[in-house]
C-alpha cells in the first residue's frame, strides 16, 4: 500500500506535467481586455493537479495519509490474479471487436468469464453467450438504429438488415 501510494502520486505528477505541456500549445496567459487565453483553463488546472500530487508526496513522507502507514499489500495475490484475468479478458474483448465485431467478441467473453472464471455449466454459459448478443442486436441496432462495430462479420448481417430495417 505504502509503495503504491507513492508510485501513483509520482505517475499522476508526470501525467499532470504532460498535460501542462500539451495545453501550453495555446495561449495560456492573460489576453488584455479579453481574459485568459484558450489554453489557460487546462494549463492552470493541470498545474493544480501537479501541486496536489506533490502535496500528497510530501504527506507520504510525513506519513500523514492512512495509506502511507499501511503495511497491507495494495493488491493481495488472489485479487491480483483475479484483477489481471478480468481486465485482460475485457481488454481482449474490446480488442477483438475491431476484428470480429461485437457479435464475435461478446460470446467469447461470456464463454471465458462464465465457464472459466465462474465455473458455470456449459448450457448456462451458452444460453447467456447466445442471448446477450441477440438482445443487444434488437435493442441497439433495430430499436435505436445504432450500428455496432462488426469487423469482418459485417457481410453476415446483410440478410438481417434486409429483414429488419
Amino acid at each position, binding site marked *: 500500500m505504502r509503495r*503504491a*501510494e507513492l508510485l*501513483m502520486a509520482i505517475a*499522476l505528477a508526470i501525467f499532470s506535467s504532460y*498535460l501542462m505541456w*500539451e*495545453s501550453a*500549445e*495555446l495561449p495560456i496567459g492573460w*489576453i*488584455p*481586455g*479579453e*481574459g*485568459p487565453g*484558450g*489554453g489557460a*483553463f*487546462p494549463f492552470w*488546472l*493541470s498545474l493544480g*493537479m501537479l501541486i*496536489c*500530487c506533490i*502535496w*500528497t508526496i510530501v*504527506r507520504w513522507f510525513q506519513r500523514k*495519509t*492512512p*495509506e502511507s502507514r499501511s503495511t497491507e499489500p*495494495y493488491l493481495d495475490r488472489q*485479487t491480483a490474479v*483475479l*484483477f489481471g484475468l*478480468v*481486465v485482460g479478458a*475485457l481488454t481482449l*474483448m*474490446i480488442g477483438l*471487436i*475491431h476484428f470480429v465485431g*461485437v457479435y464475435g467478441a461478446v460470446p467469447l*467473453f*461470456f464463454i471465458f*468469464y*462464465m465457464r472459466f*472464471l*465462474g465455473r*458455470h455449466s456449459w448450457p*448456462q454459459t451458452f444460453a*447467456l453467450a447466445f442471448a*446477450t448478443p441477440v438482445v*443487444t442486436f434488437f*435493442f441497439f441496432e433495430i*430499436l*435505436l438504429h*445504432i*450500428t*455496432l*462495430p462488426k469487423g469482418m462479420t459485417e457481410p453476415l448481417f446483410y440478410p438481417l438488415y434486409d429483414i429488419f430495417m
Partner: protein
Amino acid sequence: METIQLLLDGFGVALQPLNLALVIAGCAVGLFIGAMPGLGSVNGVAILLPVTFVVPPTSAVIFLGAIYYGAMYGGAVSSIMLGIPGASTAVATTFDGRPMALKGEADKALVTAAVASFAGGTISILLFTAFAPPLAEVALAFGSPEEFALMLLAFGTFIGLGSDDIPKTLFSIFIGLVLSAVGLDIISGEPRLIFGDIPGFFHGINFLVLAIGIYGIGEILWTIETSKGEVAVSEAKVTVRRILETLTELKKSVKTIIMGSFIGYFVGLLPAAGATPGSIMAYGVAKSTSKNPETYGKGNMDGVAAPEAANNAASTGSMLPMLTLGIPGSPTTAILLGGMVIWGLEPGPRLFVEQTEFVWGLIASLYAANLFALILNIAFIPAFIWVLKLPFTILAPIIFVLCVVGGYAPTQDMHDVWLMLIFGVVGYLMRKLDYPMAPAVLAIVLGPLAESSMRQSLLISQGSPMVFFERPIAGVIMVIAIMLFVLPLIKLVKNRLRGTAA
C-alpha cells in the same frame, strides 16, 4: 395556486401510458440494482443512460429518475438480508437492519425500510414542490458570473464539507475539469489537449465515458474484490398480517421518520454530501435523541427507519439544485444533468420557464415513482432475495458488455470504448488509494459550463476578475465558496495552535 396547476399539468405528462410504464419499469430496475451488493443508483443511471436514447428526453429522465428512486429503496434489501450495504447510501441501514434480520425479524426490517423510504420520499417531494419554483425565479436573474460562482461553490463543498483527503479531492476536481477541456476550445475554436493529433479527442471526452468507466467497469472491479467471500442470505417470509403488525408498530417511529426526512433533504441539497452522509447523520441524530440509545445497533426499528427516510429524501433534495440552478446535488444527478445536455435541454434556471412540461412532468413522476417503488418493493421481496443469491460471475459479464456497448453508443467511436476501459481501471486503482471519484464526475459535467461562464464573465468585464465580486449575488456566493476552500486550512491552524498551547 400556480404551482398546483403546473403540478397537475405535470401529472398529465407523467401519467401518459409510456411515461407511466417507464416509471414502473424504472422503479423495478432501480430496486434490483439497489438490491445488488455494490451497485447503487449512480451505477444504474450511468450504465443505463445510453439505453434511454430510444425514448423522448422527458420520458428518459422520468425513467432514470425512477431508477434513482427505486435504487434508494433497494439498497436496504441487501443491507438487511446480507449485512452488506446494497449501495453506499444504505450503509447506515445495516447498523440495525442486520441485527433485526438475525433476530428473525427480516420481514419487519424490510417493511420498515420500505415505509420509511416512502415517507421520506413523500415529505421531500412536497418540500421540493414548494421550494423549487421560488428558487428558480431568483435564479432567473443569474448571469454568467453568478453561474461561475455557483460552480465554485459546488466544488467548495467537497473541500469544506467532504471528509476525504484534501489534496486527493482537489486532484479529482482538477482532473475532471481538465478532461472536460479536451477537444476544441469553446471560444477560439482551436483544438487543444488532443495528445498528438489523435482524432478521437477532437470531439472531446463525453462525460459518459468517464461515468461508465468509473461507475460501471471500476465499480464491478471493486465489487469483485470485495465480494470474494461467501455470504449468508437471511430468510424472510412476508405475510399481510406481519405487514399490518409492523405498520401499527411503526406509529411510534413517526417522529424519527420525519426528522430523518428533513435531515436527508437538506443534506441532499449539497453537492458534496448527499444520501450517504445524510442517512448516517439521520441515524446519529435518531440515536442521540432516543430515550433508549443502548438498543440501537441491536435491532431497533427506528435505526432502520431514520436512514431509509433520509436517503430517499436526499435523492429528491439533490434534484432541486440540478433543476433550478443547473448544479447537480449528487453524482447521480450530475449524470442526469449530462444526459439533459445530450438530449438538447439546456440546464439552468431557464429550464423552469422554457421546459415546464419537462420539469413538472419529472416532478409529478417522482410522486408516482415513490408510490410504485413502495408497492413493488413489498410485493417482490422474494424476487430480491433471489437476486441476492445470483452469482456475481453471471452479473459481471452482463454489466461489462452493457458498459462496452453503452460507452460506444453516444459517439459511435471505438476510441471512447478504450478510453472508458482506461478510466475504469485507473479509477479503480486510484479509488483503492482513497482518491474520491465523485468530484471528478461532477467536474467533467460542469467543466464546459464552468469554463464558458468564467470566460464570458471576463469578456463582459473586459478581463477584470472583479466582476465576480461586484455583483451582489455572485459576490456573496464567491465569498462562501472561498471560505469553504480555506475551511480545512483554518481547522489545521486551529489544531496546531491548540497543540502548542497544550
